């Protein structure tokens, strides 16, 4: 029984890292630009497909697939930002929401038309050896996901807090006009944060291909969780999002494993927790008010 629990917890933590990876890029972008980017999930989905095709068509390692997805989605994000979002940013929030929601639905439907709605499984050989600790086994791909997810997360945190561009991002989101007076090109800084968020989405798409299935609607499932995680952690609070991911993945994972027919319950219970937290602490668990 205890090994079963430990096993379930470890697998849930690897899912937490995956959720955190998806949320990491989103929380950077949302925290800086305030654009609620619904299409982030579709960026993740595109990264998953790219990693999948690179492996199944060309036999390229998913390590390479993740990196390539990161670059590809960074480029797509730059195009989306310049061609489209930069204009919408100057309009009111409703328009921004509708714009990114529209983009999300557009990409999703194009993907369904092009690739069919059916799920695919990558079946790549494990990237890392399986971990075996006294009867508890953790598949190598889950370890890889946990590692890459954490690295991605720490990278987002470090960029925001310890680089000159990170400081400029925080200035630009605090007070864009004042940031411009300080010599910061706010539009470029917003674009940069959007591009970095897009790259993170691409890499986390590669993680999705490793441990989940590859399917056009996978992005929707993940982005809903990412928004829940951001709400749990507090908007723009990157460490808070990490803990939010763990809470979400653990409740989901443990419910699926130990409650009869829990597979269908897990997602729902996780959101009940989210709703409760939001009622008690509207600014998230780690709640300094995110934007005073």
């Amino acid at each position, binding site marked *: 029984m205890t090994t079963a629990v430990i096993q379930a917890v470890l697998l849930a933590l690897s899912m937490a890292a995956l959720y955190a990876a998806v949320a990491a890029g989103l929380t950077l972008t949302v925290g800086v630009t305030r654009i609620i980017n619904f299409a982030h999930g579709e960026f993740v989905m595109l990264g998953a497909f790219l990693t999948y095709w690179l492996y199944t068509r060309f036999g390229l390692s998913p390590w390479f697939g993740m990196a390539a997805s990161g670059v590809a989605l960074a480029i797509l994000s730059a195009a989306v930002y310049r061609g489209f979002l930069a204009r919408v940013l100057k309009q009111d929030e409703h328009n921004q929401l509708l714009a990114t929601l529209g983009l999300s639905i557009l990409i999703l439907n194009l993907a369904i038309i092009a690739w069919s709605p059916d799920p695919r499984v990558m079946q790549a050989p494990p990237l890392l050896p399986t971990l075996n600790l006294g009867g508890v086994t953790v598949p190598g791909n889950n370890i890889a996901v946990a590692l890459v997810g954490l690295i991605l997360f720490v990278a987002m945190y470090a960029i925001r807090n310890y680089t*000159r561009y990170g*400081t*400029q991002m925080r200035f630009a989101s605090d007070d864009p*006009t*004042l*940031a*411009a007076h300080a*010599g910061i090109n706010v539009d470029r800084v917003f674009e940069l944060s959007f591009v970095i968020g897009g790259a993170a989405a691409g890499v986390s798409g590669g993680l999705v291909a490793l441990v989940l299935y590859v399917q056009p609607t996978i992005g929707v499932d993940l982005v809903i969780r990412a928004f829940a995680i951001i709400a749990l952690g507090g908007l723009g609070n990157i460490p808070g999002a990490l803990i939010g991911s763990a809470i979400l993945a653990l409740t989901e994972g443990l419910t699926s494993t130990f409650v009869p027919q829990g597979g269908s319950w897990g997602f729902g219970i996780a959101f009940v927790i989210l709703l409760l937290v939001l009622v008690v602490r509207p600014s998230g668990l780690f709640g300094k008010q995110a934007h*005073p």
Partner: protein
Amino acid sequence: MNRFEASLERAGYGELVVIPQLAIQVSGGEMLVLLGPNGAGKTTALKALVGDVDVGRRALRLDGADLSGTPGWRLAHAGIAFVPDGARCFGTATVHENLRGAFEATHRHADAASRRRLFDRAFDLFPILRQRLDQLAGSMSGGQRQMLAIARALMIQPKVLILDEPTAGLAPKLVEELFEALGRIKTTSGCAIVMAEQNFAAAVSVADHCLVLDEGRPALAGTVEQVRSNEKLRVAYLGL
């Protein structure tokens, strides 16, 4: 030498023209004070200089270089620093990050020596900042934030410093200290200062030139002495 010349036409908000026409000149080591009652258009005029409000025409020259078409954020790189009213700071960043971020935004390959020098200069003018380096700017008092706002502007090594009512809401002692600091900035850094102010009596201690705005129009201009000695205008516009 830092000679700054600017002229504006039709500055305002959409259809509403607040400043029909205005020209200002100020040289390095001098301060021009922009006076006028509430709603006279001081803030609008200053914002128009840095491109924050709508203008029909804007011409800016700094040491002969034409900066008329320069977008707002680039003006800081050209040496024009603007300190808006309300002691605005980046509230979720620390004092240190506020200063360092402003330095880094305008100095490409930041050399530690000039950063050190600028930090020392800021601490020299406003010693309290040294003690509060790790405090979040948003949690500081209004007076401290105003000092930080000015110090932050100095981190870009400005040739022209534009300030909007830096002493609004401050206690008399602090007003005196702040003007004293601005006087030192003016004489030691050689930058040209344009400052909006309501309090003529306090501003004359540091100002050299004076421009009075009345409902968006320049009503009176000259050296501080000239304006002070012109009793009729002084009474009419300054209530002194």
